[in-house]
């Protein structure tokens, strides 16, 4: 069988229908995950008793186990265990968010610890309260160091949104599976799908490079 892209190119719209869901999953998972990551990172840094061990357990669990497992478990096991039936979108966004929270917690922790301790010293002697020290002095400086790894996590999350196909959520990958079955041309269809993922992720890569350049500007000693 030859590779006949022209046979399926006309069906491109039916693939593109899945893109909004792909993006929605990615954004939801990343935002929720990053929000969860901040307290996780902070209790680890401050070594709060009990809380920091719990945080470590959470991070290790979600870093070492595949999101697919969380997804399938949540979708099929939760209703049986807790009599709770979540929507497919919630399940996927939630599973990915927990994975993101584990990755971003470590990225945050690394970024915060990399800010020189003299900054916190100066903020303390000026009398700045802890919240101010964190959000106005430390985090803005940590941000610069977190942009590249953070963007990598965003790209990974976008790719992992394709896992939703296994529970038939109609995002891009799932649309690809459906179209493959309809046209009997999986090779061409999935090549198109891969191309669309590439087009979605590439701007993120460019964005992260540009953000890094821009935010590093104030720190450069010319």
């Amino acid at each position, binding site marked *: 069988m030859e590779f006949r892209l022209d046979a399926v190119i006309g069906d491109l719209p039916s693939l593109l229908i899945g893109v909004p869901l792909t993006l929605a999953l990615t954004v939801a998972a990343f935002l929720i995950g990053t929000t969860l990551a901040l307290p996780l990172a902070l209790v680890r840094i401050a070594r709060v008793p009990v809380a920091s061990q719990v945080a470590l357990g959470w991070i290790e669990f979600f870093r070492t186990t595949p999101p697919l497992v969380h997804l399938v478990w949540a979708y099929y096991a939760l209703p049986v265990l807790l009599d709770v039936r979540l929507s497919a979108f919630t399940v996927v966004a939630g599973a990915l968010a927990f994975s993101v929270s584990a990755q971003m917690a470590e990225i945050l922790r690394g970024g915060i610890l990399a800010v*020189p301790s*003299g*900054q916190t*010293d*100066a*903020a*303390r*002697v*000026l*009398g*700045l*309260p802890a919240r*101010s020290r964190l959000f*106005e*002095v430390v985090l*803005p*400086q940590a941000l610069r160091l977190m942009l590249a790894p953070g963007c990598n996590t965003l790209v990974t999350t976008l790719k992992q949104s394709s896992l939703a196909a296994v529970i038939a959520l109609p995002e891009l990958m799932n649309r690809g599976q459906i179209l493959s079955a309809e046209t009997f041309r999986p090779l061409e269809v999935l090549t198109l799908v891969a191309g669309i993922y590439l087009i979605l992720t590439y701007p993120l890569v460019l964005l992260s490079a540009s953000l890094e350049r821009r935010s590093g500007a*104030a*720190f*450069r*000693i*010319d």
Partner: protein
Amino acid sequence: MTGELLLSVRQLVKRYGSTTVLDGVDLDVAAGSALVIIGPSGSGKSTLLRCIARLEPIAAGTIMLDGKFVASSERVGQAQAVAAHDIGMVFQSFNLFPHLTVLDNLTLAPRRVLGLGRAEAEARARDLLAVVGLAEKAEAYPAKLSGGQQQRAAIARALMMRPRLMLFDEVTSALDPELVGEVLKVMRTLSREGMTMLVVTHEMGFARDVADDVVFMDHGRVVERGPPDQLFAAPQEPRTRAFLSRLLGRDGDE
């Protein structure tokens, strides 16, 4: 120039793990006076300043400012009678906030802690920047300033909070030699205007000109104390003599 007792340090002990860095330090500082602390590295000078600034917990002893507790090993819960910003500190590595302009560096704490409005804080900041000779640098970012300028900005930032006591921790040690003078000049002016200050430094010229007393520390203890003329010319303790001859002999001074 001596006034009432402002700072009182009694039997201060500080340990890092099993190492005792401060071994029972007693120190009195009169209001309006300038005290210079000298000593070999590892003598605990910087640690002493950090303990006074409450950047480090103490193992034993008390630190009191104007009769109120700054830190005390016994009264851990109550030792907050003195506000953090009553004691200002300037660091060897400047520690300006790199992501903020000089002006924002100065106004951040007054606005958050003292509740000053933006306009009032900026007005005060511009006045102080003029005093330290940085009026035209208000909108600049720290990375664009020379080391001497950054340190002067750091001094202005500390002064914004109107501290009762200023601590200077080797503030010129990281500067190129030609930039040291401009910072010392600001400190001299500050002292003349009556600021109580504790200065850890290797600048003996400054100590001679500005200090009311010079304190020599070694191995976590105060070894000797006296007016600069007396201490430099006729040190009583052998360790003081040894340190001074190494220090002054090296530069070919006297």
